[in-house]
């Protein structure tokens, strides 16, 4: 269940395709019947203001540990085959992909439910922080919605 922190722009579809090929080699084709993919990308607005770019800071070490532990919790709750999490850090511009969560399972319910669980847990627990650049200067995002 790999967790990747990327400091440069990435194409989430390439990551999913590459990882799915590795997964097929590992578990064999025909093992999964469902894959859910969540992609979160950067908007150029937040609440009531424009955002021209953003810096994403994280806590190296704890970030990876926290995401791995979230994956383990998902695996305890649902019969999932594998998970891929990729999260961007550093300087980000609108439309860049921030987060990718992909979950593979035999049936769709587990893939849907585990994906949602992982994404919500990531937003509330994984140590990342966003600082937006707005027309009035830098502004730390205070809480997740």
């Amino acid at each position, binding site marked *: 269940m790999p967790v990747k922190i990327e400091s440069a722009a990435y194409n989430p579809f390439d990551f999913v395709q590459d990882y799915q090929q590795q997964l097929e080699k590992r578990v064999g084709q025909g093992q999964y019947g469902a894959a859910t993919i969540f992609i*979160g990308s950067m908007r150029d607005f937040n609440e009531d203001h424009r955002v021209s770019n953003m810096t*994403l*800071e*994280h*806590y190296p*070490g*704890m970030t990876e*540990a*926290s995401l791995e532990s979230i994956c383990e919790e998902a695996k305890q709750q649902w019969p999932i085959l594998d998970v891929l999490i990729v*999260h961007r850090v550093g300087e980000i511009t609108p439309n860049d992909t*921030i*987060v990718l969560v992909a979950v593979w399972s035999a049936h769709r319910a587990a893939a849907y439910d585990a994906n949602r669980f992982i*994404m919500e847990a*990531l*937003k*509330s*627990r*994984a*140590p*990342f*922080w*966003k*600082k937006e650049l707005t027309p009035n200067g830098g502004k*730390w*995002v*205070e*809480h*997740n919605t």
Partner: protein
Amino acid sequence: MSITVKFFASLREELNLDEVQLDPQPEMTALSVWQQATSKVNLPDKTLIAVNQEYAGDDVAVRDGDEVAFFPPVTGG
């Protein structure tokens, strides 16, 4: 050995502190580490604390060699 204290995001900027090393004292807690590292700035509401990269309360015991981090609510994803 020593205790490593880290600050992130808005806390790092407001305190102008990134990382500090403290000499261990008897019966340290996360809160006493905060007070020693910041020269007794009040711990802001909603500050999250991690000891050895796991979430902890402000009363958790801190020992020589531990890493203690303080940061605001997380906003990833």
